[in-house]
């Protein structure tokens, strides 16, 4: 019995080590965000600021157009999330319910699209969007984000659709409901939680995305938060640590909140997709 007890203790210890490793950088970010410049310059930084201040936050807003950036990020993320689920849900439905060549090709695309190096896609996208005059515009970025969010959205949604019993749809068909009617009034309500989770996931990926935003948005007033955050780091890699930490902390909050809401469903969605396909 003693070995079992010590094994348990070892497990708790290991778990604690994991949590420390995973949490400490974030705690350090928060700590840095509230430190006054004097403490940031000291050679003996402490975990808890001796003299906590909000000055870094004020300075961050003064230095960079954070509000504009947040608004751009919000527009891009909401736009991408809404459009992505609107177009992905019907397609996921077909992929889940019909074993056609088209459905197989779509599944193939979902898998293969994970392997694209973005650089191979971004140059043509840049040229195409330039011809459409959608460079340096948030709508152009939304278009890219929609397609970028589609593979995972389809993956999750296919799993959710499979979980809806076909008998319900057949019953509706027997009652004379057409395809669209069945989809709108029977399947969609049952899918709603899954659709919301998928939309929120698309929101997070778009909110966090950096590479496409960096390439496609040129002027500061059009840029999203991740791109604006990098402006805090100077050309020589020297950064004003306090405002940098403060801005980074603020930029993370929306993703964290949304993630907390859907955390369970993400795990479930991955599971559903993985097990049933």
């Amino acid at each position, binding site marked *: 019995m003693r070995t079992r007890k010590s094994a348990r203790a070892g497990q*708790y210890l*290991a*778990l604690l080590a*994991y*949590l420390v*490793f*995973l949490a400490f*950088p974030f705690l*350090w*970010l928060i700590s*840095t965000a509230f430190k006054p410049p004097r403490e940031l310059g000291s*050679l*003996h*930084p402490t975990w808890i600021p001796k003299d906590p201040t909000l000055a870094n936050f004020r300075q961050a807003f003064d230095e960079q157009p954070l509000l504009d950036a947040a608004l751009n990020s919000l527009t891009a993320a909401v736009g991408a999330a809404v459009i992505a689920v609107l*177009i*992905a849900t*019907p*397609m996921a439905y077909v992929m889940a319910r*019909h074993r*056609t060549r*088209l459905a197989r090709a*779509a599944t193939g*695309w979902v898998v293969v699209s*994970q*392997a*694209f*190096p973005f*650089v*191979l*896609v971004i*140059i*043509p996208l840049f*040229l*195409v969007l330039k011809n459409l005059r959608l460079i340096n515009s948030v709508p152009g970025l939304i278009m890219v984000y929609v*397609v970028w969010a*589609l593979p995972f959205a*389809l993956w999750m949604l296919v799993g959710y659709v499979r979980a809806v019993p076909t008998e319900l749809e*057949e019953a509706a*068909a*027997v009652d004379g409901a*057409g*395809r*669209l009617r069945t989809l709108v009034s029977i399947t969609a309500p049952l899918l709603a939680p899954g659709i919301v989770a998928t939309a929120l996931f698309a929101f997070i990926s778009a909110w*966090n995305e*950096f590479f496409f935003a960096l390439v496609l948005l040129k002027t500061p007033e059009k840029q999203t938060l*991740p*791109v604006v955050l990098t402006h805090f*780091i100077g050309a020589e*890699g020297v950064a004003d640590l306090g405002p*940098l930490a403060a801005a*980074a902390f603020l*930029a*993370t909050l929306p*993703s*964290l909140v*949304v*993630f*907390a809401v859907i955390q369970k469903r*993400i795990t479930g969605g991955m599971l559903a997709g*993985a097990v049933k396909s």
Partner: protein
Amino acid sequence: MTSATVRKRSVKRAARGAPGGDGGRGAGVRLVDHGAWFLVLPALIPILVLSVGPLLYGIALAFTDSQSGRTEPTQWIGTLNFQDLLHDTLFWDSFRIGLLWAVGVTVPQFLLALGLALLLSENLRFRWLARSLAIIPWAMPEVVVGIMWRLVYNPDAGILNETIRDLGLGDGRDWLSGLATALPAVIVVGVWAGMPQTTVALLAGLQNTPRELHEAAAMDGAGAWRRFRTVTWPALKPVALAITALNFIWNFNSFALVYVLTNGGPGGRTRLPMLFAYEEAFRYGQFGYAAAMGCVMVAVISVILALHLVGRLRGGEDA
């Protein structure tokens, strides 16, 4: 088949307006019926225009001398870009660094995530809390992850050097600008950032392992390691293979983390292929050449992955 089900079937077909509703059987030449097309098109068009199209366009660009902001028309130049690439030692250095980075991140990421997933599937107290905390890095923007670790690694105000000083292990160092430490330092960040996804995938896989079999093995006196090898691992293996393959690709194509942490420095020691290609395309405007790099990256990664997967699957059959 009862007459009721027959009637139901025929009604269903009628309702769907065309044959092929039943899993495509009897669909003949038609891929899907009209209703399905109507459902698929809204997603299919963006996929074709903004994903498949650009991909083919990108491959085509690799065989041209396309440049940004040039007035002369772009011309086909055959495989000239690839011949140049072959002799571009800077690119191959970058490629080597990319492989080191991808393997260096993927392997520890998998091992650590496996350990964490096994712990989280145990019936420990505070498991719910641990599960929530463990996936926080997943929710963070990569740029913020980079910034965060810059603060940790900061030579003066960073907590890493302060801890080293506290423990009396010396003065610490400038991790991200040291020639020897830069790549290991960014690899640690890569492992940290990718652990949650891997853990969640493995946790999902662990839920597939047959519980009864586990218990039966325990009854027969099989130790923890033996139970893991004979019961858990066979059930987990498909998920493990899939997630390591995906991680390898994602890591090889990673950009934002290293862009923020070191921007490829010092002296190109952390210049991943994506950073290299990005600079080639959007700093120097060499679109054709950068597209060729992209093609080479896809090709080499595909070969490595194919070998890895075939090897692993075969190894599984022998065992």
